[in-house]
């Protein structure tokens, strides 16, 4: 049993950690956990995700992140992620830009236990050189093939609908990269809308794709993805997102204490 409080779970993440966040844009993001990281004033985090929004922006805006490894950071209809943008423009955060596909490739290599992985040729994209992605000779013939090195996050932080007290976890709806990051990471922190008895989870076994063996914390956080969505329980709070998109640093500092957990 690894059930603990949000505060205790966030304390497991040390300054400088490489963390990978669940969900996509406004969808099943570990928002409550990210707010707790900010309340604990974490520093120098390296944050990984294919397509980030609120979560990545908040960590950049409050000085918790030093690097973002991602393919996209924005708020969709609510405009640009202002705090992320400003932090990158001012050089406080390094944006290790990727395309979502290469973030996935890096996680796949880590998940497969191999040092690098061949990918389709996207070598005209500027970030290929900046990230140091290299061609190797295909040992089976047919010329050169582009590769991406493995990135193994220290923590996959995944918000789910249901988990048991050991951290076996179920996802309803799209997984995005969550099942993959659970395989790739050293350790997993699960935040969940509800902790349920094992027999309840077993009834839904077809949706339980995160086994507990690497889970180091399970935290029950109802509305843990807020202001993002966690279907089928709640939709995104578009009004709050609109308000959030216009907050400055002072506003952000208030926001993480006002929106609880």
């Amino acid at each position, binding site marked *: 049993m690894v059930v603990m409080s949000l505060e205790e779970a966030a304390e497991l993440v040390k300054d400088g950690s490489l963390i990978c966040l669940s969900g996509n*844009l*406004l969808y099943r993001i570990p928002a409550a956990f990210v707010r707790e990281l900010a309340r604990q004033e974490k520093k120098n985090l390296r944050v990984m995700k294919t397509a980030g929004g609120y979560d990545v922006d908040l960590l950049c805006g409050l000085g918790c992140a030093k690097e973002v490894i991602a393919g996209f950071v924005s708020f969709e209809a609510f405009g640009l992620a202002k705090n992320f943008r400003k932090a990158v*423009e001012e050089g406080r955060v390094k944006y290790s830009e990727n395309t979502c596909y290469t973030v996935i490739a890096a996680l796949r290599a880590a998940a497969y236990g191999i040092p690098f992985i061949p990918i389709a040729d996207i070598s005209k994209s500027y970030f290929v050189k900046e990230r140091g992605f290299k061609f190797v000779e295909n040992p089976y013939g047919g010329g050169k093939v582009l590769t991406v090195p493995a990135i193994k996050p220290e923590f996959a932080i995944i918000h789910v609908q249901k988990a048991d007290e050991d951290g076996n976890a179920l996802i309803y709806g799209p997984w995005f990269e969550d099942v993959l990051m659970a395989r790739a990471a050293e350790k997993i922190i699960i935040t969940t809308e509800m902790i349920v008895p094992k027999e309840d989870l077993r009834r839904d076994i077809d949706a339980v794709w995160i086994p507990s063996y690497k889970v180091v914390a399970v935290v029950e956080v109802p509305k843990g993805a807020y202001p993002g969505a966690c279907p089928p329980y709640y939709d995104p709070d578009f009004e709050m997102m609109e308000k959030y998109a216009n907050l400055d640093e002072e506003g952000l500092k208030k926001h993480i204490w006002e929106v609880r957990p």
Partner: protein
Amino acid sequence: MSFTTLDKANYMISAMARLLKDAESAFMGVASFLPFMAIVLAKKLYNPDLIWYSIVGYNPNPKHLPMSTVHPWISKYCDAKLQLAELFDISARGELDVVFLAGAQIDQRGYLNNSHVYINGKRVQFPGGAGGALLHATARRPIVWQGKHDRRIFVKEVQRITAAGKPYRVVSPLCIFKFDEKAGKLVVDTIHPWSSYEEIKEKTEFDVNDAPTTPPPTEEEIELMNRIDPHGIRKIVLE
């Protein structure tokens, strides 16, 4: 004749929908109101067999345009599960026909910059190209779209290449470009009725040509667009 912002959005959506008449499959990414509506239109009016790969699942059947084009409820109306990573694999295998891509900067080769630019030495950060780098390079027919048209966007050469590929068409609020194989660059295919060769020339950094007028949306298309998006969310893209 004067055209409202909504009329202009309707022209762009209708043009994109017609480009899907003979398409086998289509994918659109995040923040893509116009492609979302174009795909719904194409499936309803022209090409019921069009396969729609979405971020949240395979072949969604949405009834209206959501505020987020990856809105959770879309996944409830899909024919099958499809994880995002698999969509990229579909394109990498050469199995994706049309992909809709946006560009903060678009150059005459059809390359896109969604990374950043330097203006007077100062960095201006964009969100990043999401899946674009792979999709532009590997989908059969990338359709590029942009809600604005000026010389900072339509440039000779992008400052950073986020995504390289050969667009099938580029749909702007002034015109539609197609890729000319012989010249190896974009040429104007049609001009929207509220614009002109002169205006496009003034607002595009690379050389452009005169072209015929873009055909208007049909009554049927407009009626369907109004039904899917009664509040006119699609206007946001052009504002």
